[in-house]
């Protein structure tokens, strides 16, 4: 039936272009902010979500037509954008780039929770006020909303183009993006320009939110994360910071996803997306349209690692802390407290691995949860299917995580700075998707149940205190191992690579091999943590080591201080304990968590213990 396939093709094309238009709107905002402020704005997804809610209030509560609704959404989101710039960026301007990044994570937590508190976590119905009729245009069926989305995106992009191209303000914006200092010397008020950029980006994001709300006929508080992921992906595809690249990246992403689903089914959506994304990055490390934009000349240090003096933790404090940790089960036998600290030790291992890869070797990793997952699955499967003794399966799981994870990360090694961050985010997603879809090995969504409990030399370790000590012992061994590595020639080489890749290469350092070594060492530690977790839980599936775990781990590292091993442990304890501390606040506890994170960054931008 040839005409039938042609019709399908045309329909899928429309499906892909419509969703791609919305991705493009989100991506443009991210690209503008990245261009001007050199910041990956994690709060952008929340702006988009709030735009959707404002639109929903106007349309369903107030019964307004779409025109005034879009104006109100634009004004509200612009104000929100300026506020985010003020809170998240302006005061932190002189600090390391990582501080605003963390601040935007805090803001996005707080905003998402605030909306959930006000409007409840239930999705809200957002019926489109447009007629539901569809017209046939040359064999393609197009709805009124599809047309509106296309018109608004094209208009927005054209207006933005005209603004950037023909107005003095637009020139000032582009000048700031090209060279902030030079623009400032020429009399451009770069702070005002930056606020303007945030406002424009927020307006585009908010309008995208309203349209997606109508397109999917509902709005819900958690819509921000997925949108952000798609915005990042579209940006990477087109080339970070490039506005035309963002538009084309968004459209391409929409088409790739839609045809991916058409070929393989919905479950493969993200797998398809990220495999193609990583493929593009490997072939063209600056994205499809970023070629003419040179890589930022600064080495990673200037971008991510703060110039600060780390807090010197005296040896007696470290030893005292360790002794206190060992003795804790004798002081309080409360299993609740011990479980919190057991979790903290396991997360501290994840944080150590991130601090090694990101802080010491300079490879910003947002996919480290993938190593946890591989370690957990490998160890569980070895123990269940092959009956390996636990101590062997734990180590083998960690080793497999190190080897397999590094192999999967290999394509990323030729990328630099922010591209590494976003590409590793993609790899984490790919690992998750493989676990989900490789049912023969991983049992898919049903997961692995009845994983053998922890044991050591045949003695089962099932009580809370022994589990606590086991986790603590693993952390100590991992920390000593990592500390030795950092003291060695290898550690110096990693730091050299982090400070300046070009200089390191000039001195004969083979970058890829040293990056691989960092991922192997870090992957082993993370894999061990994941393996331990799997046996402690007795059940894991694809959700156990969700992608947000990577972001949580990175937040711990940044909070404690990049590259700082004691900082990683302190960050892990703080972020494991804080949500528990706020438990009496019930629904509001993640709101407070976000605000506290924001305040910590505001007053201690280089991390609690400072960056090494």
């Amino acid at each position, binding site marked *: 039936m040839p005409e039938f396939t042609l019709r399908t093709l045309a329909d*899928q094309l429309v499906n892909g272009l419509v969703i791609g238009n919305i991705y493009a709107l989100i991506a443009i905002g991210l690209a503008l902010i990245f261009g001007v402020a050199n910041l990956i704005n994690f709060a952008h997804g929340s702006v988009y979500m709030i735009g959707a809610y404002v639109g929903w209030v106007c349309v369903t509560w107030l019964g307004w037509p779409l025109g005034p609704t879009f104006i109100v959404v634009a004004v509200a989101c612009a104000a929100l954008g300026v506020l985010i710039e003020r809170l998240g960026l302006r005061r932190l301007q002189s600090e390391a780039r990582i501080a605003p990044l963390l601040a935007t994570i805090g803001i996005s937590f707080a905003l998402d929770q605030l909306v959930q508190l006000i409007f409840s976590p239930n999705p809200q*119905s957002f019926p489109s006020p447009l007629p539901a009729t569809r017209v046939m245009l040359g064999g393609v069926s197009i709805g009124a909303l599809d047309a509106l989305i296309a018109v608004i995106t094209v208009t927005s992009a054209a207006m933005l183009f005209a603004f950037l191209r023909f107005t003095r303000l637009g020139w000032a914006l582009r000048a700031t993006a090209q060279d902030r200092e030079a623009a400032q010397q020429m009399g451009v008020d770069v702070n005002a320009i930056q606020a303007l950029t945030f406002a424009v980006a927020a307006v585009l994001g908010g309008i995208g939110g309203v349209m997606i709300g109508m397109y999917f006929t509902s709005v819900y508080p958690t819509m921000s994360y997925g949108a952000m992921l798609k915005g990042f992906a579209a940006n990477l595809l087109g080339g970070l910071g490039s506005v035309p690249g963002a538009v084309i990246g968004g459209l391409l992403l929409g088409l790739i996803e*839609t045809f991916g689903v058409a070929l393989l089914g919905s479950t493969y959506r993200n797998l398809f997306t990220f495999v193609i994304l990583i493929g593009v990055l490997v072939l063209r490390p600056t994205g499809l349209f970023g070629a003419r934009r040179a890589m930022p000349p600064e080495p990673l240090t200037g971008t991510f690692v703060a110039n600060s003096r780390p807090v010197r933790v005296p040896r007696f404090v470290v030893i005292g802390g360790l002794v206190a940790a060992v003795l804790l089960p004798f002081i309080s036998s409360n299993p609740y407290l011990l479980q919190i600290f057991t979790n903290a030790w396991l997360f501290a291992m994840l944080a150590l691995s991130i601090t090694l890869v990101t802080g010491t070797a300079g490879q910003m990793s947002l996919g480290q949860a993938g190593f946890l997952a591989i370690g957990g699955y490998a160890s569980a499967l070895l123990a269940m299917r092959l009956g390996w003794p636990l101590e062997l399966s734990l180590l083998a799981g960690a080793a497999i995580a190190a080897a397999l994870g590094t192999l999967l990360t290999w394509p990323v090694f030729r990328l630099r700075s922010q591209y590494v961050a976003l590409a590793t985010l993609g790899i984490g997603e790919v690992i998750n998707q493989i676990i989900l879809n490789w049912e023969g090995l991983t049992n898919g*969504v049903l997961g692995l149940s009845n994983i053998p409990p922890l044991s050591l030399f045949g003695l089962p370790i099932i009580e809370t205190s022994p589990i606590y000590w086991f986790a603590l012992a693993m952390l100590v061994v991992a920390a000593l191992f990592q500390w030795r590595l950092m003291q060695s020639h290898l550690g110096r080489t990693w730091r050299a690579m982090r400070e300046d890749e070009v200089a390191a290469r000039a001195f004969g350092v083979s970058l890829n091999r040293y990056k691989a070594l960092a991922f192997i060492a870090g992957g082993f530690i993370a894999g061990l943590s994941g393996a331990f977790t799997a046996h402690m839980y007795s059940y894991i599936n694809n959700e156990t080591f969700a992608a947000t775990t990577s972001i949580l781990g990175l937040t711990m590292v940044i909070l404690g201080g990049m590259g700082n091993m004691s900082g990683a442990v302190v960050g892990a304890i703080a972020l494991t304990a804080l949500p528990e501390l706020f438990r009496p606040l019930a629904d509001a506890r993640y709101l407070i968590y976000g605000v506290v994170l924001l305040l910590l960054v505001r007053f201690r931008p280089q991390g609690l213990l400072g960056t*090494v």
Partner: protein
Amino acid sequence: MNRFFNRCASVRRSKLNLLSVFAALAMAVSACAVQPPPAAKLPDQAAPAQPAASTEPIYIGVSGPLTGPNARYGVQWKKGFDLALDAINGKGGVRGRKLEYIFEDSQSDPKQSVVVAQKFVADPRIVIELGDFSSPASMAASPIYQRAGLVQFGFTNSHPDFTKGGDYMWSNSATQADLSPALAEFAHNTLGLNRLAVFYLNTDWGKATYDLFQKHAQKIGAEIVAAEAYLPDEKDFRSALTRVRDAQPDGIVLISYQADGAQIVQQLATTDLKVPIVGASSLHSPDFLRLGGAAVEGVYIRGQFSPEDPRPTVQAFVQAYRAKYNEEPDFFAAHAYDTMNIVAALIEIAGPDRKAIRDAFTKIKDVPSVIYGKVTFNPETRRVANPQFVDLIVKDGKFVTWDGSQKAGR
């Protein structure tokens, strides 16, 4: 280690600040954590800890999502629990004591549900635990409950392995083994649909339901022409719907939750595919109507209770629910309501004792239930035997019992 930490000069002021902040944090956590002394190792103590004359309420621990992506289910649970407790405590409670629950938010996240589990097992006031919501969160906590001898009553846990975690794991969730064949028979035998396109939520619940559905559908002679799995965060079904349209089904089956089910039906309305839609009992929710609007009109649901069911248990629940919350009850709230009533029946027999409550599961018989009619547990599977089903249809924005008319007439 010195060389490493001494590499840079010290900054004394900030160090002191930091250490004190950190110490304060640590102290606060431990202060929070120090519950009443952990005399909680109850499993071997047969007799109730307190004298029967105590007027203290009896506490039930609930671990579930109140924030995060699954928060809406936790909110529905609360409504069902509160409604049941209104009635139970209005009649003077159980054994002369009021029944209360402590709801700890886990976000349905395993690393939080294990912490919550430890908190509950250490709290001697808690006599039974309900939840968690998702399988990863519930089953990660099972070893802790099993070890401490506190019943984990996973009332939404349909994962076939959940109750295999130990003899303290019980569930009154219908397993897919009951639900799936009933759904297949409704679609094929009752509605006469032969070419089925199935959308299913790719979670442990949806996948297991689909696998059994597919087997049974084949057995009774229905053909599955398209099967679309989707992840819980999926919103864009247009591409999948185009695929389904091309497969030319004569009916669509939704193994979905309320929000995603409503999305599929709404997005289906924008295509030119007009065939009957049959949904699993999880769609029986006012949210499905609210989110689906006019598009869900005429959708068939193989439900587990009908608001029009004349049974007094159902009517008491439906009337009280409408009065209290001014909305129609849903499947999750009904389930929570039933569960709290079962818990009351258990404590009535066993008293506030953890081990006795576990043993009481085999003793309670024919507890009135909205969803099952009457609940009796099978001591082998630790689940409920023989759930019942009713056929519903959405008519004028309401769920009504389907009278067998307008067959396949959407």
